[in-house]
């Protein structure tokens, strides 16, 4: 089959849920369930570190999970220390917070510096994270606005990675951020880590979740949609999941067609 036909068919099939709203059932997977339990187990008022490493390209896939998590943490009066391990993720921190305020407008009275802070970009990937965790004010003496950390109330008493007990890593990348967060933060400082990750990271992190090294994960749009359903904050992930379901059915049909085509060609 000419690939152009496949492209057109994919476009048509993938567009259906956007024009014809559907309510499809949504079972909750174990990973999402564990993630929700982890978020709910964080004591009210705790300080949580949050790596927003979601790019604009992966925001439709994972952004909702990140924004709903931020909303839920703010609702629990948790104070959030945002940072990013990606240079292009810097503007996404503010975007993420604004999305959380849209989900629950009552939260827009949260005060920068007291309830949340944006530390900006931590460069150097795994080595950079290791350095950051050994001396947070040493690596980032100011927040992303240039305010010294000692002048920011939420940062009082936070010197190393061990001073924060809960970490969320939202990484829209298939490389290894979840694993190096586990190595550098969980293994060294014994913190509790929750993940928001792309679908292909799922198999990579399953062993760590089963072993209790990571507390839970929202994997792909499906995981984010499940979390939206669990927290009763319906958003874009639920409608995207419907589109995903229909596309997957179409991909299965494509696969059957390719096999039929292959065996017909052999005869």
């Amino acid at each position, binding site marked *: 089959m000419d690939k152009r036909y496949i492209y057109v068919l994919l476009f048509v099939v993938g567009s259906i849920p956007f024009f014809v709203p559907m309510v499809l059932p949504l079972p909750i997977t174990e990973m999402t369930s564990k993630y929700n339990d982890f978020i709910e187990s964080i004591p009210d008022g705790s300080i949580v570190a949050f790596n927003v490493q979601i790019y604009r*390209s992966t925001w439709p896939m994972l952004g909702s999970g990140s924004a709903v998590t931020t909303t839920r943490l703010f609702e629990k009066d948790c104070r959030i220390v945002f940072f990013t391990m990606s240079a292009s993720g810097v503007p996404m921190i503010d975007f993420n917070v604004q999305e959380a305020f849209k989900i629950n407008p009552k939260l827009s009275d949260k005060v920068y510096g007291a309830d949340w802070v944006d530390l900006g970009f931590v460069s150097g990937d795994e080595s950079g994270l290791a350095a950051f965790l050994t001396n947070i004010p040493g690596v980032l003496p100011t927040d992303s606005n240039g305010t010294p950390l000692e002048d920011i109330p939420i940062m009082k008493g936070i010197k190393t990675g061990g001073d924060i007990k809960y970490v969320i890593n939202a990484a829209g990348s298939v490389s290894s951020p979840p694993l190096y967060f586990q190595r550098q933060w969980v293994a060294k400082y014994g913190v509790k880590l929750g993940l928001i990750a792309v679908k292909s990271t799922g198999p990579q992190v399953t062993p760590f979740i089963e072993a209790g090294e990571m507390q839970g994960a929202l994997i792909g749009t499906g995981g984010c949609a499940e979390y939206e359903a669990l927290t009763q904050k319906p958003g874009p992930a639920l409608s995207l999941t419907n589109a995903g379901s229909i596309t997957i059915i179409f991909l299965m049909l494509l696969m059957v067609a390719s096999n039929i085509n292959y065996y017909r060609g052999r005869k």
Partner: protein
Amino acid sequence: MMSFYKSTLPKWILFICGIVVLIASIFVVPEPLKNVSNEIQHFTSILTSFAICLGAVSLGINNVKRTVKKQSGWCYSIVLLISLIATIGIGISLGRKSANFMWIYNYLYMPLQAAIYSILFFQVGTAVYRTFIVKNPTATVLLIFACLTILGGAPAITCTIPGLTALNDWILAVPQMSGSRGIMIGLGVGIIGISVRTILGREKAYQMGEE
């Protein structure tokens, strides 16, 4: 003398940095040694920032050369150079949070990135058509597991077929996890081997291009 600067000195720097960080990570060491180890790690962040600058300079130089020599695709190089200079210029002169810089990020960078990523959707479709073909028993096993995993990602299907979620969870928790753990342990052992070779100066990949 050149050989000392290009080969011997980097090897010694690497050896000393590697040993100091390794010892400080594994053992309880005196405070001064711990501070040296921390400083070495901090230096990574500084080096990475310089690497980003170096990357931008290298990208610029290569594209200027391409444009001057009018090699194929030189017009794209001009677009790249204009974008690079404009973004860096606006970012440095007006600030990263200025309206102009954010306009570039929100209305140029974001849509372009999203557009490029969305092309994957179509690539996956054609990849499924071309590669998921039952040609032999191994391919059949791969195909069955792939289908079950893919179907497990479609809530509409998992709700329709009873037991599919449980089967999918089992695939992730048993066969997949065994394979993943094997790969991770292998990777870990490999990384230890490479690290030891690098610290001892036997690994020369970082000296690429040098004898």
